């Protein structure tokens, strides 16, 4: 008993320290990660290029053009910034989804998002649906599929009586089954081995497609949504207590649940568009952060956002360097390393949804 009495409230200063530490850690991670890559570039050269781009300091011929400049500015940095956005988005959506369905097994993809995304991608790859959408039409279709399925889940859960956590989960499962069936149907009759490979790779997730023109939309969107959910900590906390208690505390959760789901789906849709399906981050980060700072969403949201971002930055670095001359799909790496570490954490602490169950 005494061991589990961790006195969360007295750890307020610890929480502040942790947040500052993670914030500094994130900046440092980016600064270190940008010097690591398959092409060896001295780290002071890397920083000189960045300084030149940011403040115009230094020699424009040496640092404003050329291969060195292009690698840093158009390959490494966009990937890192995208990693930050994707990690943050997945972690925060994980937290929100777990609160919405009041279930610790939820991840950002739980409510049909993953199968919706893969159906969209499958249609794009196999049947060429949406080719007019530009070069990343597979991503766009994935995003559209994800968002469309979330909307349908929301509608389905509100049919008949008002939605609740269980109805949302059931609607998500039912629509997932429908979407995967259609995906399989398309794959089965397309007889397209190459297409199957493309889909499989896309589903493993990758940050390789990072481009500044995408980042300028995704990063602000993720940050704004994260800040929004941070302000909603009170309602998110109430969601864990359930509908009945929340009504006696003056909050009708149904409308919030629907609204949050919409925002989270939007975020996930964009993340899927930019990076495909990167699993496990949205499941593991919220749990790890609960072990660190407790269940209160006032802390859970910001710390998860920062930790998610840091995790993806480093996961992406590892993916690029772990196998020489080759790149490991980030989804594989995260599950391979993440799952065992999570099992370790679970075994070490008696842990269930932030308490003992």
């Amino acid at each position, binding site marked *: *008993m005494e061991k*589990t*009495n*961790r*006195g*969360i*409230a*007295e750890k307020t200063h610890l929480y502040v320290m942790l947040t500052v530490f993670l914030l500094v850690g994130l900046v440092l991670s980016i600064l270190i990660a940008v010097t690591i890559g398959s092409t060896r570039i001295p780290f002071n050269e890397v920083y000189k290029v960045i300084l030149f781009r940011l403040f115009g300091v230094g020699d424009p011929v040496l640092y404003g053009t050329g291969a060195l400049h292009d690698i840093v500015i158009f390959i490494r940095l966009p990937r890192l910034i995208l990693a930050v956005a994707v990690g943050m988005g997945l972690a925060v959506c994980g937290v929100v989804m777990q609160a919405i369905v009041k279930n610790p097994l939820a991840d950002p993809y739980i409510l049909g998002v993953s199968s919706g995304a893969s159906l969209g991608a499958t249609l794009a790859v196999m049947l060429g649906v949406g080719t007019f959408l530009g070069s990343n039409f597979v991503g766009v279709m994935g995003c559209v599929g994800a968002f469309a399925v979330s909307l349908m889940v929301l509608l389905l859960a509100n049919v008949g009586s008002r939605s609740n956590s269980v109805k949302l989960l059931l609607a998500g499962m039912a629509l997932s089954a429908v979407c995967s069936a259609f995906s399989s149907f398309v794959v089965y009759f397309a007889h397209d081995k190459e297409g199957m490979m493309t889909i499989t790779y896309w589903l493993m997730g990758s940050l390789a497609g990072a481009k500044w023109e995408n980042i300028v939309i995704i990063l602000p969107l993720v940050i704004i949504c994260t800040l929004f959910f941070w*302000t*909603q900590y*009170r*309602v998110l*906390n*109430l969601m*864990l*207590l359930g*509908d*009945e*208690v929340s*009504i*006696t*505390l*003056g*909050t*009708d959760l149904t409308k919030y649940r629907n609204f949050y789901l919409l925002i989270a789906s939007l975020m996930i849709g964009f993340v899927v568009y930019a990076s495909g399906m990167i699993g496990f981050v949205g499941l593991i980060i919220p749990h790890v952060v*609960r072990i660190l700072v*407790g*269940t*209160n969403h006032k802390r859970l949201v910001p710390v998860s956002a920062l930790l998610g971002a840091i995790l993806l930055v480093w996961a992406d670095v590892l993916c690029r360097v772990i196998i020489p001359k080759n790149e490991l799909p980030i989804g594989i790496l995260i599950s391979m390393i993440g799952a065992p570490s999570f099992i370790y954490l679970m075994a070490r602490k008696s842990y*269930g*949804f*932030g*308490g*003992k*169950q």
Partner: protein
Amino acid sequence: MEVMGNNIDVSYGDTSILKDVSIKAKDKKFVGIIGPNGSGKSTFLKCLYRVLKPNGGSVYIDGKELKHISIKESAKKVAVVAQHNFYNFDFSIEEVVMMGRSPHKKNMERDNAKDYEIVNKCLEKVGMKDFKGRSFSTLSGGEQQRIILARALAQETDCIILDEPTNHLDIKYQLQLLDIVKELGLTIISAIHDLNIAAMYCDYLYVMKDGNLMIQGKPKDVLTPKLIKDLYEVEADISEDKYGRTNIIYYPEHIKRGDKNENSNSSL
């Protein structure tokens, strides 16, 4: 504050759960609802605290119909301590009590110094100040119920509804919780299982059976051996102690009522 439920009907499908039940709690009175399991006590209270919509009848808070009050507003007027329920979350006790402040906060408003002050005061009122920093899941059942009471107090309402809050608590915590509540001087509406406790704390009693209101009145007038026999099919004796308090003694089947003189002398 006065709380009134008028002609409340509740049914699930064809099954009628509550039939035309009316209850009134006058300002600063402790009103008890008693009755056997399944008599509709909790169902009625759920209508009062808006978790259940009655099929007929209406609830009034200070003369205003509940329908016309937002959920947020009613949570500032009526707080609830429900049957003992476990939350398996690692919220600290301050965080749980702080949730009682939510009806007073706008959507994006942050907790301020006044909220923390109120949380501290409420923790002190329920005698849990020394437990600050503990996480809710590490507390005993009695302590948890006191924290839930503190959360209700943090809502700063004039009325508290107790939905069998002392279920599963041992006698010390039952009395402790009700003592705290009684001291508050608020309007209290409580479903109570234990008739001795009902007699001890309530100013007024409503008796329910099979979804109907059977009888109402002061505990002394209401609680009779006949009523207890009708309600629970149990023989009982009711006496008054030297302070004028009601004592109810039950006689289960294995203790014959005819033996009661011998029985009252030897507890064996």
